[in-house]
């Protein structure tokens, strides 16, 4: 027996399996990051004084530009598939992976600068929440890279067998990637500017 709603949408929900699954997953992610953002607010409001200007705005702004660009290339990878442009799809997906790696390299240098000044998580409450939030976000970036590399490698076989299902999977990857980018859109002003 075949699993229903792999490609076609269910009449009552208007969703197929992959879209329902990814949105349920993203809902749990909202709760995870929501809890950490709430922790940040509680720590900041309760602190007698809060350090400001500890982080390099240039590093943060550069990473913001990188992630916004990667969301554009990700959506282009999906749109190319919808237009049956296989070569363009792979190119845009590869560029997205490259931008994600660029983000991580940038983050590595930022971490290295702080660690060099002994500004590690135990240094103060600000750095504890900074490393927690950006570290978790960085892990999500790594997760996205792994998924995209899978679709550039062995996962690409599905495109020949069932192109619609493959397109749906790329759309789900794109939704995840946009969520990860959206978290950064909130992290940047909260940690670097305010």
């Amino acid at each position, binding site marked *: 027996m075949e699993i229903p709603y792999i490609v076609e949408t269910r009449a009552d929900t208007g969703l197929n399996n992959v879209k329902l699954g990814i949105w349920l997953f993203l809902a749990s992610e909202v709760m995870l990051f929501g809890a950490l953002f709430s922790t940040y607010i509680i720590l900041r409001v309760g602190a007698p004084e809060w350090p400001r200007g500890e982080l390099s705005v240039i590093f943060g*702004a550069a990473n913001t*530009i990188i992630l916004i660009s990667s969301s554009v290339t990700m959506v282009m990878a999906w*749109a190319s598939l919808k237009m049956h442009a296989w070569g363009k799809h792979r190119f845009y997906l590869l560029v997205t992976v490259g931008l994600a790696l660029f983000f991580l390299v940038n983050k590595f240098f930022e971490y290295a600068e702080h660690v060099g000044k002994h500004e590690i998580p135990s240094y103060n409450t600000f750095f504890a929440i900074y490393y927690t939030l950006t570290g978790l976000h960085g892990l999500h970036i790594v997760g996205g890279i792994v998924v995209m590399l899978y679709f550039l490698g062995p996962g690409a076989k599905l495109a020949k067998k069932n192109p619609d299902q493959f397109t749906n999977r790329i759309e789900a990857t794109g*939704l995840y990637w*946009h969520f990860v980018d959206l978290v950064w859109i909130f992290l940047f002003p909260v940690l670097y*500017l305010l």
Partner: protein
Amino acid sequence: MSLRAFHLLFIALSVILTVFFAVWAGAQYQSAGGAGFALAVVLSLACGVALTVYGTAFQRKTRRL
């Protein structure tokens, strides 16, 4: 929500961020001065305009996807 709709939402929020960043840089320029902050205001607003143009074009061109 489709990826197309989520992307448009993301671009809209990115535009808001560029405006927020420009306001922040403007405030820093007023209090501390420095050409870097003035440049940041201009670049941020330019990015905001570019993202708005991109978002509009994306919405128009992907209507049938």
